[in-house]
C-alpha cells in the first residue's frame, strides 16, 4: 500500500514539474514565435536568396561578383574605415569622460549620466539634422571660425567623410561610455589605494592598475560601437551626401533602385557574418546585457 502511494506521489510530482515547465515555456512562446517569424524566416530567406543567380538557379554568382567588383571592394573599405575611425574617436573622447564620471560621487555621476543619456534618447535623425545645420557651409561652426579669424574661407564639413565621422562619433559615443562606465564603477578602489600605499605615483597607479582593469569594459564598448557602425545607414546617407557609401546604403540601393535581391542579400549575409564574429568576441569579454540595460 505504502509502496503504491509513494509511487503515486512521485508521478504526481513529476506531472506537476512537467506542467510547470510547460507553463514557463508557454510564457516565452509568443516571444519566440515573433522571433521565428520576423527574424529567423526573413533572414533565412535572404540567406537563401544570396545563393540564387540571375537565371534563378543555385550559384555563387552574387558572392563572386562582390569579390571581383572594384565598387564593392571600395564599399567594404569605406565601411571599415569609417567604422574604425568612428570607434577611435569615440575611445579618445569617451575614455576621459567616463574616467571622470567614475571618480565622482554618486550624485554628480548620476547627473553626468543623464547628460550621456539625453543624446542617447534623442532621435538619431534629430542629431543628424543638427549636425547638418551646424556643419554646413554657412553653418554655425564655419561662421564662428570666420568671425574669430581661425579660418579664411568656409571649410567643407558636410557631404563628405569628415561630416559623416563627426555625426557618427556623436551618435555612437554613449554606446562606448555606458559599458565602460559600468566596468569602471566595478573596479575596486582599494586596489588604487594599495598602489598609492606601495609608493606608486598617481600616474603610475593609473597606468599599471586602473587602466588594465578597465580594458574589458573598453573593449566591449569599442566592439559594440564598431559593430553598430558597420550597419549604419541614416547618418552617412544624410551627412555623407552620397559621397560616402557604406554597406547598409548599398544594400538599400540594391533593393530600392535595382530590385536586385540577390546582390542585396549577399552583401547582407557578409555584414551579418562579420557582425556575429565580432559580437561573439565581445560576448566573451563582457555580458551583453550591460549595454541594453542602461537605455
Amino acid at each position, binding site marked *: 500500500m505504502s509502496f503504491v502511494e509513494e509511487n503515486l506521489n512521485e508521478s504526481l510530482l513529476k506531472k506537476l514539474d512537467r506542467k510547470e515547465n510547460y*507553463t*514557463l*515555456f508557454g*510564457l*516565452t512562446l509568443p*516571444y*519566440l514565435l*515573433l*522571433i521565428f*517569424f*520576423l*527574424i529567423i524566416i*526573413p*533572414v533565412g*530567406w*535572404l540567406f537563401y536568396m544570396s545563393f540564387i543567380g540571375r537565371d534563378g538557379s543555385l550559384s555563387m554568382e552574387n558572392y563572386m561578383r562582390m569579390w571581383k567588383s572594384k565598387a564593392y571592394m571600395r564599399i567594404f573599405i569605406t565601411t571599415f574605415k569609417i567604422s574604425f575611425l568612428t570607434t577611435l574617436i569615440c575611445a579618445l573622447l*569617451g575614455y*576621459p*569622460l567616463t*574616467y*571622470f564620471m567614475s*571618480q565622482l560621487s554618486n550624485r554628480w555621476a548620476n547627473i*553626468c549620466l543623464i*547628460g550621456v*543619456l539625453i*543624446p542617447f*534618447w*534623442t*532621435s538619431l535623425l*534629430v*542629431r543628424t539634422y*543638427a*549636425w547638418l*545645420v*551646424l556643419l554646413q557651409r554657412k*553653418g554655425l561652426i564655419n561662421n564662428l571660425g570666420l568671425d574669430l579669424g581661425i579660418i579664411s574661407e568656409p571649410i567643407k564639413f558636410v557631404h563628405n567623410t569628415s561630416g559623416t565621422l563627426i555625426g557618427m562619433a556623436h551618435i555612437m*559615443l*554613449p554606446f562606448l561610455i555606458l559599458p565602460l562606465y559600468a566596468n569602471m564603477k566595478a573596479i575596486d*578602489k*582599494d586596489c*588604487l589605494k594599495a598602489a*598609492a600605499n606601495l609608493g606608486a*605615483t*598617481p600616474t603610475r597607479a593609473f597606468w599599471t592598475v586602473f587602466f588594465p582593469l578597465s580594458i574589458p569594459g573598453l573593449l566591449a564598448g569599442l566592439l559594440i560601437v564598431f559593430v553598430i557602425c558597420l*550597419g549604419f*545607414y541614416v547618418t552617412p*546617407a544624410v551627412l555623407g551626401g552620397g559621397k560616402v557609401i557604406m554597406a*547598409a546604403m548599398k*544594400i*538599400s540601393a540594391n533593393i530600392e533602385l535595382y530590385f536586385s535581391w540577390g546582390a542585396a542579400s549577399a552583401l*547582407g549575409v557578409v555584414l*551579418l557574418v562579420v*557582425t*556575429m564574429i565580432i*559580437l561573439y568576441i565581445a560576448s566573451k569579454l563582457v555580458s*551583453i*546585457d550591460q549595454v*541594453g*540595460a542602461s*537605455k
Partner: protein
Amino acid sequence: MNVWNRNVSETQIKFKDRLWLYIVALFVLFLLIVPSLVVIPMSFSASQYLEFPPKELSLRWYEAYFFSSADTGLGFNDWMGATWTSVKVAVLTIFVATPVGTMAAYGLINSSSRVRGILFPVMISPMMVPIILVAIGLFYFFVQFKMVNSILGLVLGHSLVAMPLVLIIVLSALRNYDMNQEKVARSLGASRLRAFFEITLPQIRFSIISACLISFLTSFDEVIIALFVSGGDNSTITRAMFLALRDQIDPTIAAISTVLIIISTGLLLLSQMFGQKKD
C-alpha cells in the same frame, strides 16, 4: 589646504594636477549635449535658410508642422498625419512588446540556467542582427502577406526591436526580486496568475513602466524599418523626416526636431524618476 591642493582621489592626486581631466571631460559632455540643441533656436527663425543666430523670429515652421495639410510631394501625407501614425504605432508597440517581453522574462528567470543559456541569445537577436537586414527581411515577409504600408506591419517590426530591451529590463528587475514570495502565495492557495499580479507585479512595476517608456521611444525614433515597411498615408514621422532631409533642408524639420527633443527628454526624465525608486 585650499581647493587647488585638495586631494581628489584614492591615489591622492591634487586637484590642480587633474584640472586637464575636468576640462576634457566637461568639453566632451558639452559636445554630447549641446549640438542637438542647436535645432531649437533654428526652429524659431523666420528665414528659409538656416542662418544662425536667426535674424528674425517667427513661428512659421511650427505653423507648417502643425497646420499644413499640403501634399509634401515626398510620398507621405503631411507632417501631422505622419506624426499621428508614429504615435499610434508607438503606443501599439507598448502593448505588444511589454507584455510579450515581460512574459518571456518571467519564463526565463524561472527556467533552468541551461534553457536560459540557449534562449537568451536567440531572444536578443533583434539587437545583434544589423537592422538593415531585419528591415529588408521584414519587407520581403510583409510583401507576401500584403502587410507593407500597414500599421500592423510597423507595430510588429517595432515590437521586434523593442522586445529585447523590455526583456533585459524586466529580467534585471526579476533578478533582484525573491521569487519565493510568489511560492508562498501559491502555497497559500493563490493561483500562479493571481500570485504574479498581486505579489510580483507590484514590486517590479517601476521597471515595467520604464520598459513601456522605452518601447514607446524605440518605436517612435525608429527609422530604418519604417523606411522599408511603411509608406503612403502610413508613413511615420521619422520616414518623412529622413526623406525630407535627404532631398532638402526644410526648416520645418527644425520645428519637428524641437518637439521630438522635448518628448524624448521628458520621457528620459520620467524613466529616471521611476528608476530612482528602486523596485
